[in-house]
């Protein structure tokens, strides 16, 4: 590739320039000539000496010496690697290979040869791998279709959206294959690879993390025992408490990211002296969340080229076309470690967007503003707590957004309401969705002496809603903002359902079943409460089982959403009131749900007509149940079943 004669490529680029946005990426890449300040790989020889640029402290890059050892051909797929020593620099002598220096430009004879990118675990010498600049320049030249930018301003054309939806989630892998792999198809495939595959209304953060890790993790971090290069990116976590850190580690670690407790910086309200632009060798951060809680992947800028720049020399998440906010970063120190040294730093000023995340480099567009959404958290009930309000901005990403919503809220709660006392919290989140209005989601928890933590939130309805929306199979959606109000009360507002007793085992038709619930509150005597459950008249002459369950465990009968509008409608209503007991009576009928409509009880004739033999896009069927909601004003744990007999009607 380095031997490409200039005369071959120039005319092609001139001719193809007008149409190159739709041309095949690889050809466009070849058409970019080497700039004059770049040394082709063919000229790199063992023993050559030069320097690299990286920030060791603060924001200004410093030089460090390098000496070429050799070149590894085809180190990564179609990508060579230059092995260099980094002698003489005192920090590097101590730290050897430093995560976060990834992307530091390396120069020989004043010409850039590539970026510091790979190191070896437990290496005892300061030896690193350099990604050749040629491979990185190819990525820089690669066009990024505007329409594919997630949240990239204008909504996608309707026709395109439906085409996307029609492909379905499960087909993601095969999309576009065999058609020459156009840029658009490739980008869609990469994004689909990171999409949560599962029921659209039942998002699960843990499952999503596992799925993403399975798909992209090994592309970024090869199995450790292979002793191969590892290109992890240190993630600077700011404002994170212990359990949030653990959660970050559990969620991000398998993706090849190394969460590290660090400072949060002030990227949204930068210091006046913070740099306003990126420079070659300067520190760069990729901000997944910023504000009172922050998470930022740190690395080094390799080469600024107009409005765009190359950094890292390796992928961050290998996610292809993405849209994550970036920032000029400030480095505090290089922490040397026997295992793996890393830079510790923070964001200094938010600037630009990571637009392409590839094997050889990440590409940042400094003119683009990445989509983020604000999350405002207000904690009530902690009188005199120093920080009841938390504000942050979260990257609008299919996986990162739900993950960091969970971590951020959980972390804020943990920090503000860390109490060994019993406490009960009720959160109401208002989730504003572009074009679909605002939905309200209720989450709750009743502590038992264990402080609140982020884990409590990873399964919260808010996180599941955010995940469901961002991963929906129908259309692009934009989460515009989240306002969460958490009310905390001290006390364990939980009662254990100890038992239920039917007061009248035989009933006449129309009579309500009276059931005494024995509830064991925390610190108190067993309380009794008599509830009444109406029994449908058609169950006359039968033994009727009444199931008693907490409202948060009973799903409402809902149609599986078949569009984003239906998903938005379903999300707030999936379960009954959490502070209630729901009495369920199984009926002899069936129900059907279709297109957002639920017919809860159908006579057999109507049910028969609703189940076509000639069509498979038909209503879903379920056994009909009669639910009676009994508000309890507290959380109930436990379930029970009682049986009553309804006397037959004598006619």
């Amino acid at each position: 590739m380095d031997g490409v004669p200039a005369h071959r490529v120039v005319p092609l680029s001139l001719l193809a320039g007008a149409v190159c946005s739709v041309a095949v990426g690889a050809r466009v890449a070849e058409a970019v000539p080497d700039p004059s300040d770049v040394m082709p790989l063919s000229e790199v020889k063992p023993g050559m000496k030069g320097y690299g640029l990286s920030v060791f402290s603060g924001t200004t890059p410093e030089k460090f010496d390098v000496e070429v050892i050799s070149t590894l051909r085809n180190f990564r797929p179609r990508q060579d690697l230059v092995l260099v020593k980094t002698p003489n620099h005192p920090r590097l002598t101590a730290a050897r290979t430093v995560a976060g220096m990834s992307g530091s430009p390396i120069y020989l004879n004043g010409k850039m040869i590539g970026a510091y990118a790979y190191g070896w675990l437990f290496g005892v010498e300061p030896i690193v791998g350099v990604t050749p600049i040629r491979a990185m320049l190819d990525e820089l030249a690669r066009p990024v279709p505007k329409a594919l930018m997630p949240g990239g301003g204008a909504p996608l054309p309707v026709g395109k959206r439906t085409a996307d939806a029609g492909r379905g989630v499960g087909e993601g892998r095969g999309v576009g294959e065999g058609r020459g792999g156009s840029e658009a198809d490739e980008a869609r495939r990469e994004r689909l690879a990171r999409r949560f595959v599962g029921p659209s209304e039942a998002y699960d953060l843990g499952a999503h993390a596992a799925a993403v890790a399975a798909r992209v993790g090994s592309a970024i971090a090869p199995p450790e025992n292979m002793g191969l290069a590892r290109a992890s990116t240190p993630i600077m976590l700011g404002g994170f408490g212990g359990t949030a850190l653990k959660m970050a580690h559990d969620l991000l670690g398998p993706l090849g990211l190394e969460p590290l407790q660090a400072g949060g910086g002030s990227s949204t309200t930068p210091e006046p002296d913070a740099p306003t632009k990126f420079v070659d060798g300067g520190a760069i951060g990729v901000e997944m969340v910023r504000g009172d809680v922050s998470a930022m992947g740190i690395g080094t800028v390799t080469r600024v080229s107009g409005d765009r720049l190359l950094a890292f020399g390796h992928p961050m998440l290998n996610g292809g076309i993405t849209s994550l906010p970036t920032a000029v970063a400030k480095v505090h120190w290089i922490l040397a470690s026997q295992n793996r040294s890393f830079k510790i730093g923070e964001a200094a000023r938010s600037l630009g967007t990571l637009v392409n995340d590839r094997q050889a480099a990440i590409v940042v567009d400094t003119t683009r503003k990445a989509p983020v959404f604000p999350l405002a958290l207000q904690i009530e009930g902690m009188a005199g707590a120093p920080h009841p309000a938390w504000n942050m901005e979260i990257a609008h990403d299919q996986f990162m957004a739900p993950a960091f919503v969970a971590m951020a809220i959980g972390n804020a709660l943990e920090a503000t309401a860390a109490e060994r006392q019993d406490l009960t919290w009720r959160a109401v989140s208002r989730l504003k969705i572009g074009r679909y209005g605002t939905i309200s989601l209720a989450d709750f928890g009743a502590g038992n002496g264990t402080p609140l933590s982020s884990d409590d939130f990873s399964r919260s309805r808010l996180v599941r809603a955010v995940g469901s929306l961002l991963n929906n199979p129908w259309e692009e959606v934009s989460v515009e903002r989240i306002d969460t109000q958490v009310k905390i009360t001290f006390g364990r507002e939980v009662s254990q359902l100890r038992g239920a007793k039917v007061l009248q085992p035989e009933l006449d038709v129309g009579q309500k079943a009276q059931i005494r619930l024995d509830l064991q509150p925390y610190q108190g005597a067993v309380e009794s409460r008599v509830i009444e459950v109406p029994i449908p008249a058609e169950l006359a002459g039968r033994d009727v089982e009444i199931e008693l369950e907490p409202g948060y465990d009973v799903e409402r009968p809902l149609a599986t959403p078949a569009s984003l509008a239906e998903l938005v409608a379903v999300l707030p209503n999936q379960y009954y009131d959490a502070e209630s007991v729901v009495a369920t009576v199984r009926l002899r009928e069936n129900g059907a749900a279709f297109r957002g409509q639920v017919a809860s009880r159908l006579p057999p004739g109507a049910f028969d007509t609703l189940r076509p033999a000639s069509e498979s896009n038909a209503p879903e069927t379920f056994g009909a149940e009669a639910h009676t909601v009994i508000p309890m004003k507290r959380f109930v744990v436990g379930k029970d079943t009682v049986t009553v007999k309804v006397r037959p009607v004598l006619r």
Partner: protein
Amino acid sequence: MTKMRSSFRSFVRRSAAAVIVVAAGLAATHAAAVGTRTFTLDSLEDLKGGDLTGVAVDSNGNVFAGLNLGKTPIADATSVWSAVVLPDGAALLGTGSEGKIYRVAGGKVSVAATTDQMAVSAMAVAWNGDVIAGTFPEGKLFRLAGGTAGKGAGEKAKVFAELPGTEDVWGLAYDEKAKVLYAATGPEGKLYRVDAQGKAQVYFDSEEPHLVSVAVGEDGAVYTGSNGKGLLYKLTGPGRATVLHDFDADDVKAIVVAPAAKGGAIYAIANKYSEPFASPKRNKSGPPSPQPARTPKPGKGTLTRFSRDGVAEKLLSDDDTHYVSLGLGEDGAPYVGTGAEGRLYTVSENRVERLVADTEERQVGAFVLAGKQRFVATTDPAVFHEVRGVGGADAVWTSKVLDAGLRASFGRLTWRSGGALQFETRSGNTETPDTSWSTWSPALAAPGDVKSPPGRFVQVRARWNKEPQAVLREVSLSFVTDNARTVITSVGVKNQTRATKPGVQASGGEAPKPSSSVQITWQVDNPDQDEMRYRLWYRMEGQTPWRSLLKPGEKVSRTEYTWDTTAMPEGEYRILVEATDEMANPPDRAQKHTLESGVVLVDNTPPVFRSLALQGRRLRGEVVDGLGPVARIEVSIAGSEEWRPLFPSDGIFDEAAEAFDADITAVVPAGSHLVAVRAYDSSGNVVTRDVDAR
């Protein structure tokens, strides 16, 4: 009657090419000893086969022209729940599963209104010709002024009333005199009375979960049917309900009250459904996916008529399908639409049941068969079938494939019918009509000679294009087949004493019983089913001439004969069988075939003891038979029936003379006894002698 009904139903199942074989003797009558035979199709069973496009066979075996139906698919709907006809002749169809109301006029389908509900389960023309549509699952009533949603078609219909506590509106009936609308609802089983302003009052609150049908009589009496126990209520005022009938059914699906001028009878269909469907656990592993399409199991339906004084008479019942829709024809006869196979039946006053339409869809969701716009609307898939009339070019009855057994020449086709019909025939030599068959012959307007070429198989069809009201009762077709020679494929002779089991015959075991008759059986291949005559001869092995076995004048027409050999000399014989079709064919065309049997032994004399002596307990003697080998020698104390076998001196029973010498101490204990000795030949003839033992 019931049995008749069920057989009627079963024959209606269409089979493209049922083959009737002459040999089975179902349709072809044998003219004894004459080559001309006739296919006669006159019973229900006979007329049922073949293809019944556009025709119907009633339970008496009469073939009628059925309804001539158009076909307009309603692409976006799956099911049709309700239908009304507007004054301008357009039909409105209430559909599922997206709750749209379609307007069909002049063969064009358009969306009249949407409701955003699951289905428009009921419709009625009410005040000023406005259409009220009842829906589920939100229990809303919509009003379509003049049958449209408003200025533009296809808009969302205006909500007219929301019934409290109601999820489903299953039936609507408008009382013209009182200007009120009744709504049968679920799941609280209430009947609402709604006024023109949409104000709803509970008129009747049943104990059933759903009231699924409602109708109003001219006298203002309201009839409503329930789901659950299958009750038909009669209401004469708010809350004043009497149970008119308790059906052995799950629901009373529909009710129709005939006009007072036509007797004012109440018709109701009631259904019993098969076991409640067990819903599969919802698949939670992905976004909405195709639901497996399967044909639901149909229930059982009945149609009952109640006279004005409440006397019930069951007019129709069907164990193979439930009924979905009910209506009256122009003549006041009741029609029912089925829940399986998509059929429309009617029944006459004298309870002759008739299938009038057989659609390709699963259910007949709604139909209108009186008035200027007549149609049948079906479910799964949703199709609007306009009734174009009765009969016509599409009304064709085609017989099943008739099999003459051999290539046949066809003669005269005759039929009995009321009204003019046209007949055509075609013939061929394959069991299923294909391109090798002849084309349909020119139509016969009156009984006449068939023009189709000779062939083994033939089909007849009748067209109703002349007189749509014609009724076909009987068809017959004469034919004569080629005379094929009957071939005897095997002759079996069995001396009845012989063990039937082939293989090794043991000398021990049960003693054979001697018999003087020989059973002769033979098998023939008689392709043209001619009546046969057989002749039999015998010949002693080693001699030449065949001698007649039959007495003079004896006729054998069955394929077996018992030969009495009492008077025959002992020896080995062979039998010759001749088959001839001279009984069914003129002498110059008669053909014959003969076949010889294997050897049969005739042995009617028992063996004799040439010597027999008992010394002490030592028994000696010799047995001689005329023909066969001696088969066994046995000894016992006389009268004891405890026979013990003795072996011959050479140890094997293989000669006509066998000597024996045995110690019978084990059989005959000490003391004075009369010892019996008997010997059998291989035909089972036996001789017994006795000796004294001291």
